[in-house]
Every structure is written in structure tokens, then in C-alpha cells.
């Protein structure tokens, strides 16, 4: 078994990633891409933001470089840094620089998680300058027209600490994502996991019930992604109630009473 090693800067997505458009987001993204405007994706976790990016990269035939931001991500992690190699210092490009150089799509996932100083690095790239200054090298890289910057952000956290600054957010065209409508979500679950329409329907109804619990002890309801997981387990022969417990209930909470209640909801449906 050999895993393939890919260089994201030169790898193009070969197979069409499955994506069901909810509204006009595909046209919007394409227009923004042509007009060289950066894009901000808003929405709760697991509603298809990352999948949308893969789909768009495939459509536009550009390499996609995804950076999952975490609270220790610094500007140098994005731009690049000097490393020591055999007694000499060597500059190594960061993922953002690589994306700019190869004219790819750079997708910064959950941007608010990153340190505040990283935001400032993307500012010149996100307005009409479209340049990436590399202070340590004393250079400025100009982005080719093919380059595209996209960031994502989950406004649901409702925390002042994790809010996007106005100076950042006002540079982007925003696409809002939410859980798809019931009918669409059913189609997604069915085609992604391979379960029958009837089971997909029940999964979606179950998800809706957990979403009703948001704010009453649950931070976030079951996402489409979790439904797909549950669906895949069911398609593989696991009983629906067990699959919902493992893939959904346990994923959204640790609280014993809440777990039991979610279990009762799923066993009511299936």
C-alpha cells in the first residue's frame, strides 16, 4: 500500500467533488474570481464550506492550498521562514506564498482561530494591491490574476474574542452557508453515503431535532457531515440507532443526559 504524495501547489483536483448548490454561490464565486475579489465563507461547522472550495478549485482548474488555522498560527507560518541547512540559512516559502506564486487558490479555514498578526499579512493581498510583502526577504510578490484568496469563518461562536475585525471582513465578498434545506440535505446524504432515500430522510429529520436543541444544552446541532458519517455506517450494515449514537450523538456532546436524550430522539425515528 503506497499513499500518494501530492504537492498541493501543482496538484489539480481530478475528479469532480460532489457538491449541491444551495443558491447562487457557484456563480457568485466565479464572478468574484474573475473580478479578483477575495471571498469570505461564513457558516456553521460541517455545512459544506470546505467541500465547496474543493468543488470550485476543480471547476476553475486551479490548485487548492488549504491552511487550517489554529491559535498558534503565525504570520511566518503562512509567508515563510528561514531554516538552517548545513550551516547556511535557506528561505522556505509558506503555503500562502506558494499559492501566490503558482496562481492557485489559497483557502484559510477558520481564520479567526489564527493569531491576530496573521490577519494583517493577508490585507495587502485582499485589496486591489494584490501583493504579498515578505518583510524578511525585503521582497514583494505580486499575485497573478489566477490567484484567489478565500477565508472561512464561523460566526456561531458568538465570542468577542473570535470575531473578525471590520478592517479584515470589509475586504471580502461574503458567501453565507447554512445547513441545506431538508430536501437538498436528503439528496446530499443519500448520494454521499449511499443509503436509501427513506433512511436519508429520517437522518435529516433526526438532524433537525438536534438542531432544535441548540441553545438548550447543545452548542451546535448535527452537521450535514455527521449525517453523511452516520449514513455511511448504516450503508455498511450498522443499525441506524447505533450509527446515530456513534456518528452523531457522541460527536455533538459528552453530557450523559444529553446523550441519552439524543439517543431517545434517534430511537423514536428509526
Amino acid at each position, binding site marked *: 500500500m503506497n499513499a500518494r504524495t501530492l504537492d498541493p501547489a501543482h496538484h489539480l483536483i481530478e475528479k469532480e467533488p460532489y457538491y449541491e448548490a444551495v443558491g447562487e454561490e457557484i456563480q457568485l464565486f466565479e464572478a468574484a474570481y474573475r473580478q479578483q475579489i477575495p471571498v469570505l465563507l461564513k457558516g456553521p461547522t460541517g455545512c459544506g464550506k470546505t467541500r465547496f472550495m474543493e468543488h470550485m478549485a476543480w471547476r476553475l482548474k486551479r490548485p487548492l492550498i488549504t491552511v487550517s488555522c489554529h491559535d498558534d498560527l*503565525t*504570520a*511566518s507560518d503562512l509567508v515563510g*521562514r*528561514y531554516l*538552517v541547512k548545513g*550551516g547556511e*540559512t535557506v528561505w522556505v516559502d509558506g503555503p500562502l506564498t506558494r499559492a501566490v506564486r503558482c496562481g492557485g487558490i489559497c483557502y484559510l479555514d477558520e481564520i479567526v482561530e489564527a*493569531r491576530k498578526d496573521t490577519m494583517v499579512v493577508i490585507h495587502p493581498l485582499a485589496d486591489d494591491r494584490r501583493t504579498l510583502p515578505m518583510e*524578511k526577504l525585503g521582497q514583494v510578490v505580486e499575485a497573478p490574476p489566477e490567484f484567489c484568496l478565500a477565508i472561512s469563518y464561523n460566526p456561531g461562536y458568538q*465570542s*468577542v*474574542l473570535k470575531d473578525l475585525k471590520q478592517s479584515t471582513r470589509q475586504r471580502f465578498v461574503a458567501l453565507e452557508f447554512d445547513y441545506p434545506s*431538508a430536501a437538498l440535505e436528503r439528496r446530499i446524504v443519500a448520494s454521499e453515503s449511499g443509503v436509501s432515500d427513506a433512511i436519508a*430522510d429520517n437522518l435529516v*429529520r433526526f438532524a*433537525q*431535532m*438536534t438542531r*432544535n*436543541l441548540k441553545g*438548550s*444544552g447543545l452548542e451546535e446541532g448535527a452537521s450535514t457531515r455527521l449525517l453523511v458519517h452516520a449514513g455511511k455506517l448504516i450503508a455498511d450494515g450498522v443499525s441506524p*440507532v447505533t450509527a446515530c449514537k456513534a456518528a452523531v450523538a457522541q460527536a455533538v456532546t459528552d453530557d450523559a*443526559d*444529553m446523550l*441519552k*436524550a*439524543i439517543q*431517545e*430522539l*434517534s*430511537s*423514536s*425515528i*428509526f
Partner: protein
Amino acid sequence: MAQQQLTTAEMEASLHIWLDTEFTYFKVEQLAAELATLTRDEQDFILGWIRRIASTHITLAWQFGRRAPALLSRMERRLLEAWAVHTCDVFDRTGLQTALRVMEEVDSFDETQHRNDAAGALFDDISPILGTFVCGLSGRRLHIEEGDDAWTDGERIVLPPLIAALPDLDDNFQLAKITVALLWAQTRYGTLRADLAGVAARYADPERALARLYALETLRLSARIARELPGLYRQMQRLRAQLDPALPPTWQRFEARLAADQATLDDSLALLDAAYEDTDCPQWSDQGCLRPDAIAAARAARLDKEKARLRIKLAELLEEHTAAQPDPPSAAETPPELNVTPRDENGLLDFEVTLDDAPIAPPDGVKQLLTSVYLDFGEIPPDYLTPAGDGEYDPNLVFDQPEDPDAVWHGTYHEKGAELYPEWDHGRQHYRKNWCVMREKTVTPAYDDFYRDTLDKYAGVVKHLRRKFEALRDENRIEKRQVQGDEIDIDALIEALADAKDGSEMSDRLFVRLHRAERNIAVAFLVDMSGSTKGWINEAEREALILLCEALELLGDRYAIYGFSGTTRKRCELFRIKTFDERYDGEVKARISGIRPQEYTRMGFALRHMTKLLNQVEAKTRVLVTLSDGRPDDYFDVYRGQYGIEDTRMALLEAARTGIHPFCITLDRDARDYLPHMYGAARYIILDDVRQLPVKVTDIYRRITT
């Protein structure tokens, strides 16, 4: 090996003490003789509970002791325990007489009727689960409460204390769940829309009509559940097969009619004439009962209020939308047209709101109101959709207003608008539910020179504190010689290269890294405002708070300051001095200056409330600092002594369990023996000299948060 049985003499001795026989003259000898025949395990069980109940009320404990030995053979211990706790709860709520009555009820305990009780589902065990369960189902938010029977009024679902129709605990739980689902379905699928009492009154025997209507509706809702919740329906069928007789033939016909997809309450009403004539009327053990009065009362109170609320919210929504538009549509020739289309399909209830044909997304609050209105009418009546005009409603009447904490004391003695907190009764080894009646009040600000005087008085200290805290704040530092980092550490690199040339081992720590420790602390200060702080201590507390605020403002930590005091459990008061959201302004300074000694030191409720407030604040580290002058105490109440110490200890433990770091600063110089026990979960410090307080507190804070 089983432990040796207790002798009559041993037990008598304990009972004499617990039941205070010197004054109460209870004849414990007979009780001890009766207990002597039991095994040691049973003796311990009963004696333990006598002791625990005695701490609440001696007569109750005596009555328990007289009954318990006989009950032990026919009642599960779990139920005996639940009975004992329930009796104490009733005593807390309504006093001795009712508690004794509850005690006596157990005499009529009929074994045959209660043969499944051992496996019964207790309300306290199932309500958290079923409460969440019913919340997940669509429709209006329903609350679960404990009551005499299973019924609903459209806003809450009431369940009996014990559901024990079946010999298996799981089955009893399932039965409770099915009952909850059926009661939920009454609200969700329109049973409660009609004037049920009015319908029944048209018949010669309204009782009979109501029972039959309820049976018809139960059939209709069961069919509905079969479609919406097939898993639950399977359980329902299984349990009904065990518990209920088969349906009579006429009713089977009704069932078929009501199973249709579009069947509504009207179909049941149409069948009522025929059903009324029928001698049979099926009843299911999961159906609960119908209370038309309660339903009508809840509905009457709800309708007008929700209409007003919805219309006000829609007006707000409209305003937002017109404000967002760059150029307002040419004056208001035609008012914007608001349309709401409910979509109730496939178990989902959603609303499409359009404004002049353009869809808009209603906020959650509006959606919930629409849901509630839809459930009451089966549609959104057009007059609910005309946005309220200016001043049409008095918002004070429409929205729930926070009660004025003082107003309560002018009128009757009630608990309206207060928050209730439990209290730990160490004697009972159980919480007293809803025991403390807590209200938040604001300290009356005193606009005087206290703030300035304090700063003058401590000018040197303030300067010193500022320097110290500024050093704290500036925590971004460059860490040298790291394995990974943003830049190369040139010094380290040169050294390493030299080492390499020299032939020695080369270090791999060649990078510098910016270490950014973002302070993310929320801290709540709880200040003792009891009468005993009068004088020196009060002044020192106020000065300490001023210095503390000065320092905290530098650090940028989020903080809140509350004072606590109270007289008896009915009047527990927390004084707001600064909330987390407030800025440190003139008002807050004046409030600090206005802190005055009040009454007694009841601490548990204050700690519990602060725990709740702190947990609502988002922060990596949460600290709860209490500042008190001595042991907990309250007016003519058991709170003095061991009880208060144990309750305070428990409240601190609860806080620590939610991840809060409690820290206590105390000025109690005498009784240090109890402190380690009371502050078990918290770190604490004792200050000998009150005058140290202002300087020390700030310093302590610096130490505990770095």
C-alpha cells in the same frame, strides 16, 4: 463477613440523642427493640435516615422510624429513600403538617398495586432526559414539571412522581417517553386548538363526551406518531399490547378513519357523536389525562401577549429592513406587504417570510413566536401580521420585566421574580431544593470623595502596583534558542557553527520565537457585606476594591464585583457593584464607595450565583475570589455553625467542579480550625491585620493569576 448487629442499648443511646428525647419524650425503646431484629445492614439504613431526617425535623424522623421497619419488607430501599427525601422536600416547601400527611400516605401503600415500583421511573431521574427529548421535537418549547398525573396545558408537560406500570425499569422509562410524546403531539397537532370544555358541554354527559373525544384524539395522534416517529410507535404498540386490552370493533373503524394523512381535530369532532353513543371507551396507560381548564387558562394568557409580541417584533424587523435599504421606497404610499407562509411538512415546521415578495430571514425569536401562534390557530391569522404602530403597546406589559427587588417587600411575602438556589443540608446529606430566594440589587452609589481620598492615601502603593501590573501585562517576550520559531537566532547559530567546526555536537535550538501569552481571565469578586464588617473592615474592603480595579484596568482582565448579604433564606441578596459588561466609570466608583454593611453572612447562594454568572463569560481561566470576615452565619437559622460551613464548602466544590478556580481571602483571626475544611476546594489566605487588606488583595490577585 457481615458486621455484628447493633444491640438495643447501642441504638437506644443514639436515638435518644438524635430525637432529643429529653424534651420530646419519644419512646425510643420500642423502636430500638423493633430494629434489633433486623440485619446490621438494614439497621444502618434506617438509623442513617433517622439521623438525616432528624436534622430537618425531629418529629418527621420519629414518624419515619416508626414506619420504616415494617415497610422495609414490602418497599424497595430506593423508594423508601425517595419517600424520605420527598417528605423533607415537602417539609421545606409547606411545613410540618403536609409533610406528616405525606408520611402517613405511606401507610396506605398497597403492595399489590405497587408491585412494579421497584422498577419504576422516578420523575427526578427521567425529567432531564425527557425535557431535552421534547425540546428536540419540533414546535413550541414545552417544560416538564412534576405533578399529580400526566397532562399538558400546551406550555408545560406534567408527569407524576413515579411511573411504574411495568416490571422493567427500561419499559417504564419508555412508557414515560411515549406519554410525553403523546402529550407533545396534542400541542403540535392541534388537539388543544378547540374549546374542549365547550364541545363537551353540548352533550348530556360532558364527562363521557370528553373521555371519548380524548380517546379519538389519542387514536389520531398515535397514527400521526406512527408516521413521524416510527421507532417510538413500535415501542408504543409493544407496550400497549402488554398493558391495554384490544380495541373494540367500533373503535377500530374510528381508528382507520383517523389514521388518514390529513386527519385533523375536526375529524375527531365529526366522529364524536357516534363515539358518544358507544358504550365502550378505550383507555391507554400511556395517554395521560385531559385538563380543559388548564389548557384554556394557558391559552387565554398566551394569545394576546403573543399577538402583541409578534406585532412588535415584526415592526422592528420592518424598520431594520427599511433602514438597510440605501434609498427608501418613494415615501410610504403603500405600506410594505408582509407575508408569512407556514410550511408544515415531513415533521418540519418552518416559515417563509416575505416582504414585498422578497424573502427575508426572520430572527429566532420571531420564528418561535410564529411557531407558537401557528400551533394555536393552524395558520398565522392576518391581523397578527400587521406590524405594531408606535406606542400601540406598552412594552412593560407585553414583555416580561425584571421584578423590582424591593417591591416584593412592600407587598405580600412571595418569591416572584427571584432566582431560587438549592442549599446543601449536611445533616440530611441532601440538597434542600429551591431553598434560597435570591435577588440581585444594585448598591446605592455614594458620590463622595472616597475614590480620590483612597488614591491619595495609597499614592505610593498605587504607583508600585501600576508598575508591577504593567510588567505583567507586557507578556509578549521573545524566547531564544528554540527548536522551532519565526526567525533564526543568529547568536545560537554562530555558536552552533563554531561548535560544529570544533567537532563538538551542534545544537538544534537555533530559532527565536515570539511567545504571546494572551491573558484570557475572567474574575468575579464576592465581597462580604454582612453587618459584622461594619467599621474598619468595610472601609478596608472598599479601599481594596478601588486599588484592585485600578490594577485590573491595567491588565484588561474582565471582572465583576458583587457584594452579598441576607437575612434568612427568604431574603438572600446579591448587590451588583460592577457587572462583567460594565465599564469602570464614575458610577462604579460611587457604588464601591456606597458599599455599606447589611445583614448576615449566608454564603452558599452567593457562591452558586457567581458560579453561574462566571460560567456565562467566555474565558480560558475563571477565578472566583471571595472576601469575607468570618464564618458563615445567618439570623436565627441553622446556618450558623456546621450547617453553614458545610453548605459553603459544597458551593465551593460545585464551583471547582465546573472548572472555576475559587480563592478565598478571610479576615477571621480566631477560628482557624474550620477553615481548611470549609475551603477544601479552594485556596485561601488569612489576613491578620485588616489594614493590610487593600495592599494585599491586589498582590494576591497578581499571584493567583500568573
